[in-house]
């Protein structure tokens, strides 16, 4: 178990480093907290304004309010986008070369780098749920928490895969990966953060966009978390969960393989420290 305690200790080191660093920008830190509340209020208000337009798509989610729908979409998105984007921070050439001189393993390095961001996203979720239940009538009594947490964790694993792939490519090309940017942008458009993917059928009657949307892990996560909010359990969500697990296994496996390959190439080329 010593490797586990060592890894947790190292992850704590990263968390502490980022906490000290972020809180040193005092004004920025305070306004980030204020921003959490503003975001939650914005999403809830946007949901209320679009309630009538969204109503036809809310039937499959137990006729939940559009405000709740959007707040859930946004808070899940915080976790998923961070999971996709954060691994690329490790490709920061100077920091990476320096960390690789310590006995810290690559998975610990990646988890450690993301730990503060996850903590921050968790705070965001608490604020979203608080504002949602206090102002926009979000019903917390029906939530199946195990389903909510498990779906979110599998989704995070899938997004890590994409993020680690991007980080690997970034290590070699030294460029911000446009694929990640595209996937994030497409996800905002199609995976159901603000509106149900069915709404895509109103602009594309062929159903191609709708079909592509269901190839994204985010779409499954938003869909299942919303269902968890109306009390559905994992047993009710077997098929979408299997689909998400397959996507997570493929993306994560591919990501890890790509990252290791790219890291080895950099170590052979000597380009690890290049900017």
């Amino acid at each position: 178990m010593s490797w586990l305690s060592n890894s947790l200790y190292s992850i704590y080191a990263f968390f502490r480093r980022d906490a000290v660093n972020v809180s040193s920008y005092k004004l920025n830190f305070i306004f980030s907290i204020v921003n959490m509340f503003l975001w939650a209020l914005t999403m809830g208000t946007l949901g209320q304004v679009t309630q009538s337009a969204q109503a036809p798509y809310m039937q499959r989610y137990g006729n939940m309010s559009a405000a709740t729908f959007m707040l859930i979409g946004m808070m899940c998105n915080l976790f998923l986008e961070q999971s996709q984007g954060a691994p690329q921070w490790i490709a920061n050439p100077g920091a990476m070369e320096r960390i690789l001189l310590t006995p810290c393993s690559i998975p610990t390095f990646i988890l450690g780098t993301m730990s503060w961001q996850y903590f921050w996203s968790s705070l965001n979720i608490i604020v979203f749920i608080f504002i949602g239940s206090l102002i926009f009538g979000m019903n917390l009594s029906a939530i199946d928490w195990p389903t909510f947490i498990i779906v979110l964790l599998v989704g995070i694993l899938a997004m890590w895969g994409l993020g680690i792939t991007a980080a690997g490519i970034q290590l070699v090309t030294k460029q911000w990966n446009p694929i990640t940017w595209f996937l994030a942008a497409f996800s905002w458009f199609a995976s159901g953060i603000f509106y149900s993917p069915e709404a895509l059928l109103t602009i594309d009657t062929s159903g191609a966009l709708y079909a592509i949307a269901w190839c994204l892990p985010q779409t499954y996560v938003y869909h299942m978390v919303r269902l968890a909010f109306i009390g559905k359990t994992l047993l009710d969500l077997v098929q979408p969960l299997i689909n998400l697990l397959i996507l997570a296994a493929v993306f994560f496996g591919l990501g890890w393989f790509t990252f290791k390959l790219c890291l080895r190439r950099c170590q052979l080329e000597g380009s690890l420290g290049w900017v």
Partner: protein
Amino acid sequence: MNYPVEVESLTKRFTVKKPLPEEELGILKFLRRLLQKPKTKETILAVDSVSFKIEEGELFGLLGPNGAGKTTLIKTLGTLLWPNAGTALINGYDIRREPRKVRAFTGTVLDIQMGWYGRLSCRQNLLFYAQLYNMPPSKIKERIGYVLKLVGLMEKADEWQQKLSSGMKRKLDLARALLPDPPVLLLDEPTLGLDVESSRELRRVIKHELCRNQRKTVLWTTHNMDEAEQICDRVAVMHKGKIIALGKTDYIKSLVKSGEVVTCEVKMMNPQILASIEKLDGVISVASSQLNPEAYQLKIQVKEREVASKISEAILKGGGLLYTLRVEEPSLEDTLIKLTSEGSK
């Protein structure tokens, strides 16, 4: 004999894309890049089958001009680069098979200062790295205090790293390398950017405190020949990836049969004096430089020190005033220049 560093036929090659010729810059270069994959690649042998061993407590210098392969060798030993052939054992661990153990027993200072967090204090930065080395929490505070004191940064311990001068940042680099109390130190130009006094103090700390008292094994790369001559127990001269000479500094100097150097300061200098010195038997070369409007310095390379008396006679006969004359052995710098220029040939 205990050898904490054993390097065996270590080879590191890089494949680099050749830059396009000048005439192909601009739109042509852009089109070529767009339409076809560049085919012009060349392989650079940065470290060429290098072998050496360093004893416990030894301060081993790695000398060589820019591009000789010193930093590549340090990075390969520090497991940042993957060798193409050969291997090395650091404290008994193979850099290929057990890189994490190698890192746990090695403190490395690289030539470029990176991996610092500007808005964390020196102490907080070191705490972060101490935790990555999995140092027990009970010992961290004491160890950080010790390394900061050793490198002379105790007074700056609670200042933001970004407020330090470049020399202080260099010292902090060394403090970080010393944190886990590693038996082996890989130092890539550790005195770069330090003022004379700090540089001397750091050399003293590394030589006496770390090597002599704590028996740490140090591999030190430098361009500074005086530095190497003063503190290194042995040196290796690297050139184009190869070690072209290895041994104690006296031995390295003896490898080049460059005779001795007569240095003299002359007033009322004239061209006839130079011409007559050049004609003397045993004189290899003469170089003159003006010290001030009245005086010149002559550096005369001679085959043997007896030629010095003939030189003083020639100066006096030519109407010059001889102020000082001294005969010196060639410095390590002279030797290095000679060795690397012979290596190039």
